[in-house]
């Protein structure tokens, strides 16, 4: 089982980003996804600087993948995606069908992101035939559906690397509205990137204080941190080839080490509670509401 580091979903400063990735060089992650996927206004690093960072990580032996923006509306956003698809150097993760089309047109291999909504073998085959080499199942898919899908894909000869979002706050939705700017009473057009004040998003709780969601600009994430390491063996048996960990500001190195150790059979302890800032959840995988957590997890 390989480990990947998902794209950074939060708007950190340039210094924080550089420090974060410098630490990852020595971490046992095999694949690193880079780039801005949430909001085109977040520009701590320019596209060329992401490429330069990619070269450093590639030189350290990581497979580098550039991730495209998930919600592409403005012409300027589409131009950015176009340039990224034609970077000429790194594999690209397509996070909307516009990026898929651009990559397929160029005959380039690509990773299909979780927001492409690939729920069945017919959909997988269609994108495999257009250059998809690795894919992420939809974030809500249960173990039962994932097992059906990967089993059927094998029988149909649709063989792809499968990467599952295993650790981190789940990106549940995106909108045209910026919920962070709205929270502080600023119009989106004059947001001054206020989301930079919240390096792990803004927690949103029920009126009883139950953590529910996390506001991250135009993205809404889960309030809890998904953690699927306890199912590591089962995931491998299902045919998952890579587990994705999503960046968080602190303690990610410890989490990565624990994932690696357990997957390698060097440790039995899957507990990460000391290193997360919210409760953990695993409901989607168990076919339950996503926020649920198994009693003994």
């Amino acid at each position, binding site marked *: 089982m390989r480990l990947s580091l998902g794209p950074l979903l939060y708007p950190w400063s340039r210094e924080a980003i550089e420090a974060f990735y410098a630490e990852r060089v020595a971490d046992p992650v095999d694949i690193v996804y880079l780039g801005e996927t949430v909001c085109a206004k977040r520009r701590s690093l320019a596209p060329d600087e992401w490429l330069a960072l990619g070269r450093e990580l590639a030189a350290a032996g990581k497979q580098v993948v550039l991730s495209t923006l998930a919600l592409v509306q403005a012409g300027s956003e589409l131009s950015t995606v*176009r340039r990224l698809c034609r970077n000429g150097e790194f594999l690209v993760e397509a996070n*909307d069908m*516009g990026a898929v089309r651009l990559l397929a047109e160029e005959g380039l291999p690509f990773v299909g992101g979780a927001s492409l*909504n690939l729920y069945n073998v017919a959909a997988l085959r269609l994108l495999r035939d257009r250059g998809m080499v690795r894919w992420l199942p939809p974030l*809500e898919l249960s173990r039962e559906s994932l097992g059906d899908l990967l089993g059927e894909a094998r029988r149909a000869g649709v063989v792809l690397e499968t990467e599952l979002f295993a650790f981190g706050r789940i990106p549940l939705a995106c909108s*045209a509205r910026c919920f962070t700017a709205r929270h502080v009473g600023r119009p989106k057009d004059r947001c001054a990137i206020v989301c930079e004040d919240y390096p792990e998003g803004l927690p*949103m*709780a029920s009126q009883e204080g139950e953590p529910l969601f996390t506001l991250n600009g135009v993205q809404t994430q889960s309030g809890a941190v998904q953690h699927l390491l306890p199912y590591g063996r089962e995931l491998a048996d299902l045919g998952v080839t890579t587990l994705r960990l999503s960046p968080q500001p602190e303690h990610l190195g410890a989490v990565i080490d624990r994932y690696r150790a357990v997957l390698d059979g060097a440790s039995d302890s899957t507990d990460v509670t000391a290193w997360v800032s919210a409760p953990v959840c695993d409901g989607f995988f168990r076919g339950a509401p996503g926020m649920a957590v198994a009693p003994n997890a």
Partner: protein
Amino acid sequence: MKLVCPAGNLPMLKAAVGAGADAVYLGFRDDTNARHFAGLNFNDGSARKAVAHAHERGCEVYVAINTYPRPAGWRRWQRAVDTAAELGVDALILADLGVLDYAARKHPGVRRHLSVQGSATNSEALRFYADNFGVERAVLPRVLSLAQVERLCEDSPMALEVFGFGSLCVMVEGRCLLSAYTTGESPNTEGACSPAQAVRWVESDAGTEVRLNDVLIDRFGPGESAGYPVVCKGRFTVNNATYHALEEPTSLNTLALLPALAGAGVAAVKLEGRQRSVAYVDKAVRVWREALDSCHRDPTAYRPRGEWMAALAGLSEGAQTTLGAYDRPWQ
């Protein structure tokens, strides 16, 4: 611009046709469509009657098969496509790549529209669906500003349909897991959002509480009007402030934008609300028919009339309407 209207059952379809719909859209009685609600939608028999009724009166019929099949359900989605094609409907409204591929191969003569659930928000995405499946029209997610819709009309390889009125999705359609996260019921796979069976109203000292799978979504004081608890329209706490942190209970109403939308080249306007009532459909379609006719006659003199706006506000969540994402300040 054509007027595309919701039909949750045969009486609603007749009301829509009678009130001046150019097309009606409907779904079958299962999870193959995004309004999979108890008591709603059509079986083979009622769908046959619906098609006959609409076609006799020159109204088109579209069938929404716009959820995403997982392997265990795949044949049900195939059957839905076959059934719709055999009924002689005018178009299929589809989202899943596999279902689009199946429909394009098996029934190439039946027009394919991309559902809003397909989440296409830019010209390259639209080209993907045009090139691969011969999709002729796309319904745009409710996240584009008016300027972006205008630009997309220029660049699009296919006709575009936009939402004109009804419940407002705040998130990009087809990409929202808030209901699945909270209740386990998903718009993408089950065709349900914040489903009624997960809702519980509780009277307490603090007022009326409404819970969705036990999560407190909102609390209403005496005399405060309480809407249906859609997960994105509740009151939550962020940094000690309790408010509608995602969106207020409000409906989209774009009557004011009709000349701009028509001028941009938008092909059709869609009204949301298959889960509503015959009275809702009748009123909403009448207002929109009158407004569209007025706009077509003379777009420069067109103004939304007060009585239209009042009638639509009366049909809206929280009696409020908004221009939504079309209007930049909303974003």
